[in-house]
């Protein structure tokens, strides 16, 4: 079966400092992959390699069965959308103007968006439910809305993969859930989603694949239900957790969650 | 055998011994008596010889001998040395000098180049002896020694009375003296009278046989010694009384234009510190190549000075234009004991005042030159204004004076430029609305003024004139239409800006503006005459042509 993305034996170092090595991954079309691991395990670097922004030291990445290093900047942008963890605002562009920027890979060097591009942008906005604020300056909307705008911008790129670097880190409780929901819904339309997260509950919220990462290595990859266990979580986080589930009020399966507990709570020194 | 000599024999031996001893004693006494007699005899003989030869009593030193007749043609009765101390004047003939307490010693001179002459033996009279006879000298005084050829030498109180002069070994390295050196008025060298090129009296420094002194402290053909105050005062343009040394030998001049005035007054050799601007003036350097070799602690930036460089030149006085240094810098000069003489810089009256003050600083000879210059300057002004003052404003040509082409600027009212334009019978087209020097104006303003004559100062004047003639923005002016755009002459300094050559500028401008009224003026001749009289430099025709067109010296 054709995989959207294949990672074989991937390794990366900053100078002599090795970040990860010997990693293997397959991501199918429409699949949602969460890379779960503590801060500093190398997941952001891995994500940027998968996006083609960084070059692997060893190993290959295939995008649609083609070596990713053969893609130029524009081709990469037409295939991969990236939602960064931090976005610093500079000027008060309107929401629609921001989303239209996602059409850049399809526009010539000296061109600007045509009516067709604008309508593309608008449909991307409506997909995330933000069309009603299209003319508002994006500096005046809430954090959750900004996140959705940026997602809409990547949608305007008509990508086959969207990568999210810690998509929920600046969001409040409600917006975290909504954001993850959008990610899942978009995946159903055939776009592969890869996100990094350090919160196991987010990895468990929707049925997806989870790759648990620690110190530059995958300790396990597989269906969320199966691999996110108390043992694997203890292995990567070093604390005791309890995984439990309750029936889904919708009646479709279970809601699973994770909570830490302390056998011997560490004292203050 | 028994130790028994007969008593008689003992008695004989004793008696003989005593007799031998006595005769020995008697013999030596007899000899001395003989020598003394001889000495007495010869002494008597000598003294009698001397008595006949000498005319006045004197102390005799064993080594004193008079052998041959003196080679100098100075009659024994004429004055060879004069001492002036306030109101007291004493004269000495050579005989009178010799009648004073004579002192003999060694003297060796070391020139600036390091050439050692000596040691020679000199006989003369201590300067201190002569000074004492003339009433003495105090520590607030110094002396000037003048020679027959006009050269002079100054000595300070400590040099004379404490021997604080530089001493060197006979190979030229600095070394301290064992015995205190002193100044002697010498009349005999190596047993001979001094010849006409050195004497009859020479001032010299007596040291030990293995020490030399600076040749600059030796003065041949010494003629007169004058005792005077060590300092004198000058009143500068701010009204302050500035104390400067009696003789000024080292001048630092921070005012570019004033350097030329110092040269004009004959003081160029006294300049020890100048400005970088002066060193960049081709005619100045041509006339005084030494100016390029002295330090330049002042630059084109007004009020700036490299203080260490200035102090290292050890100036007697600093000349500058009034107000050119701020209070902090003036305090630094005071702390370094450099007297500062400020001079005014705005009008023709100021120019005269500056020349006078500068002359006072340089010395009495300069003041003569200053008087000559000022009468020449005023003479020119009067000659010109006699013709031009009756001309009413409506008939005067309108003149625009600018310093260059790149920046459109001009000089208006209350400037020296406005003054000479008026003397020359013109009117400064900017003076009604612009005041001061080098004010930036617009091209439109120039077109609106429509001057009939344009004068461009500062090199490169030739190219500036061409640029103005070809510039469409100037094309509507009468000056360009009638080809009345001229380069201002530039000589040792810029003729049009506060230089000594303003005296020539007035003539040049008058002839330019009113050629028919000033047919008697020949600028080339005037320039040659001016340079000959005041700079002692003979200009060729090519030189004059270059100066009048504002160009550098022809190579």
């Amino acid at each position, binding site marked *: 079966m054709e995989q959207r993305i294949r990672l074989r034996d991937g390794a990366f170092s900053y100078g002599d400092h090795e970040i990860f090595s010997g990693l293997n991954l397959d991501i199918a079309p429409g699949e949602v992959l969460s890379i779960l691991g503590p801060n500093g395990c190398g997941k952001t670097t891995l994500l940027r390699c998968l*996006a083609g*922004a960084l070059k692997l030291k060893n190993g290959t990445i295939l995008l649609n069965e083609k070596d990713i290093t053969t893609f130029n900047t524009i081709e990469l942008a037409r295939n991969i959308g990236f939602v960064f963890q931090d976005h610093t605002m500079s*000027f008060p562009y309107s929401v629609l103007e921001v989303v239209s920027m996602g059409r*850049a890979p399809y526009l010539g060097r000296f061109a*600007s968006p045509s009516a067709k591009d604008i309508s593309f942008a608008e449909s991307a906005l409506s997909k995330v439910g933000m069309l009603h604020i299209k003319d508002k300056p994006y500096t005046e909307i809430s954090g959750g809305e900004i996140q959705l705008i940026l997602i809409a911008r990547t949608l305007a790129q008509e990508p086959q993969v969207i990568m999210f670097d810690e998509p929920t880190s600046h969001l409040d409780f409600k917006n975290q859930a909504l954001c993850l929901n959008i990610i899942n819904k978009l995946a159903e339309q055939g776009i592969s989603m890869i996100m990094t997260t350090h919160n196991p509950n987010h990895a468990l919220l929707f049925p997806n694949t989870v790759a648990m990462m620690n110190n530059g290595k995958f300790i396990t990859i597989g269906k969320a239900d199966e691999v996110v266990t108390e043992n694997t979580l203890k292995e990567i986080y070093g604390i005791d957790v309890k995984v439990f589930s309750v029936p889904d009020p919708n009646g479709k399966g279970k809601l699973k969650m994770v909570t830490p507990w302390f056998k011997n709570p560490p004292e203050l020194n | 055998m028994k130790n028994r000599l007969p008593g008689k024999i003992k008695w004989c031996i004793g008696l003989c011994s005593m007799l031998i001893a006595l005769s020995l004693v008697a013999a030596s006494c007899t000899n001395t008596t003989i020598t003394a007699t001889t000495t007495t005899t010869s002494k008597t003989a000598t003294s009698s010889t001397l008595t006949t030869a000498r005319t006045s009593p004197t102390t005799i030193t064993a080594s004193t001998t008079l052998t041959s007749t003196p080679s100098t043609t100075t009659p024994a009765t004429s004055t060879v040395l004069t001492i002036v101390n306030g109101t007291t004047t004493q004269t000495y003939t050579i005989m009178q000098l010799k009648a004073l307490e004579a002192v003999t010693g060694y003297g060796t001179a070391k020139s600036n180049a390091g050439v050692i002459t000596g040691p020679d033996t000199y006989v003369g009279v201590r300067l201190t002896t002569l000074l004492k006879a003339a009433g003495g000298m105090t520590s607030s005084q110094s002396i000037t020694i003048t020679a027959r050829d006009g050269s002079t030498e100054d000595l300070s109180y400590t040099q004379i009375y404490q021997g604080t002069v530089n001493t060197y070994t006979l190979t030229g390295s600095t070394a301290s003296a064992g015995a205190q050196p002193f100044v002697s008025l010498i009349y005999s060298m190596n047993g001979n009278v001094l010849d006409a090129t050195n004497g009859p009296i020479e001032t010299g420094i007596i040291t030990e046989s293995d020490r030399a002194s600076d040749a600059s402290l030796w003065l041949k053909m010494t003629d007169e010694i004058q005792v005077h105050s060590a300092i004198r005062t000058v009143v500068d343009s701010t009204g302050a009384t500035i104390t400067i040394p009696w003789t000024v030998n080292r001048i630092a001049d921070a005012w570019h234009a004033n350097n030329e005035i110092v040269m004009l007054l004959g003081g160029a050799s006294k300049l020890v510190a100048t400005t970088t601007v002066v060193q960049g003036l081709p005619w100045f350097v041509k006339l005084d190549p030494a100016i390029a070799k002295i330090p330049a602690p002042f630059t084109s930036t007004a009020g700036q000075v490299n203080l260490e460089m200035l102090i290292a030149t050890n100036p007697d006085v600093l000349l500058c234009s009034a107000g050119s240094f701020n209070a902090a810098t003036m305090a630094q000069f005071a702390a370094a004991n450099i007297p500062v003489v400020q001079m005014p810089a705005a009008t023709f009256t100021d120019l005269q005042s500056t020349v006078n003050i500068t002359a006072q600083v340089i010395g009495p000879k300069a003041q003569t030159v200053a008087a000559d210059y000022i009468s020449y300057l005023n003479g020119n002004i009067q000659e010109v204004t006699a013709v031009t003052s009756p001309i009413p404003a409506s008939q005067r040509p309108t003149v625009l004076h600018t310093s260059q082409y790149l920046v459109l600027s001009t000089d208006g009212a209350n400037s020296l430029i406005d003054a000479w334009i008026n003397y020359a019978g013109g009117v400064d087209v900017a003076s009604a609305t612009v005041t001061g020097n080098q004010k930036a104006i617009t091209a439109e*303003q120039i*077109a609106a003024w429509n001057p009939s004559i344009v004068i461009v100062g500062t090199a490169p004047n030739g*190219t500036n004139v061409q640029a103005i003639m070809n510039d469409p923005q100037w094309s509507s002016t009468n000056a360009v239409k009638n080809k009345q755009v001229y380069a201002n002459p530039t000589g040792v300094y810029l003729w049009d800006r506060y230089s000594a050559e303003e005296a020539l500028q007035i003539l040049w401008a008058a002839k330019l503006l009113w050629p028919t009224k000033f047919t008697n003026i020949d600028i080339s001749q005037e320039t040659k005459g001016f340079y000959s009289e005041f700079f002692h430099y003979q200009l060729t025709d090519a030189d004059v042509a270059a100066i009048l067109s504002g160009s550098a010296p022809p190579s």
Partner: protein
Amino acid sequence: MSKKKIIILIVIPLLVFYVSLFVGRYMMDPITVLRILLSKIVPITHNWSSTAEVIIIQIRFPRAVLAMFVGAGLSISGSAYQGMFRNPLVSPDILGVSAAAGFGAALAILLSANIWELQLAAFAFGVLGVTLTYMIARVYKTTPTLMLVLAGVVVAAFFSALVSGVKLIADPEAKLPAITYWLLGSFNRATYKSLFTVIPIITLGSIGLMLVSWRLNVLSMGDDEARSMGVKTESLKLFIIVCTTLITASAVSVSGIVGWVGLVIPHVGRMIVGPNHRWLLPTSMALGAVFLLVVDDIARTATPLDIPIGILTGLIGAPFFAYLLRRTKGGWK
């Protein structure tokens, strides 16, 4: 952008230009001015003085054109840099073009060059300065924003020091005032010849910037984000730097250093048309042209002297900027 706004942006500068021709210290009645202007197109009997003609045709006309082009050029450059550096406090001088061009001009004056050599020297050194900045800032085939800014500070400081050195040795009667005056900026020496070199370059540079105006929006999102959207950030930045440097170096070479225009006008533009560079760049050009033209009219008319324009733009620009700061309370809405 609405048609109405476009019309305003074209018409108002032309109108101000036209009015400027009537303004000046030399009093002329408007009819004469009109007739002089018309006489260049249609034959009319000359009944005015050559002075009047020279003033209108040779002095006011080229000066007004130059003021407009320099104002437009500096403003579009400022807008482009503010977008590229993602910082509204950036001016076109940030990479050192003005300081380096200033040194070129000072050197030319010191060596007694003529006007063409001066213009060329200023232009050449301006370009050299920015090239140095770019080379210093280059790190692993990228030129990060922070490196560019710091390198620009270094290069500007270096050339400023050199200018001070030149001022120290320049003769105080003529060269030093010329250098000082030039550094303060003036349109006094605007002639047709100088226009012929400057106008094409400023026009070309401005067209180049307007072509990439939309991509400037994307670039202003940040290098990483822009790259993820397929923008070749390094070549785009280089293109922008080349265009703005050509514009500013040629402007500085004819008019000296005119500050504040490139900093303040883009803000006014943003207040009117928003931050989208597609509208901001041309709007800045129009606003800058009008602003500098009006300021220059004041500079040459208020007094008999020619007030250096850098002084006026500072006197007007700085307080206006303070007002902007207070009004927007630091946020650029």
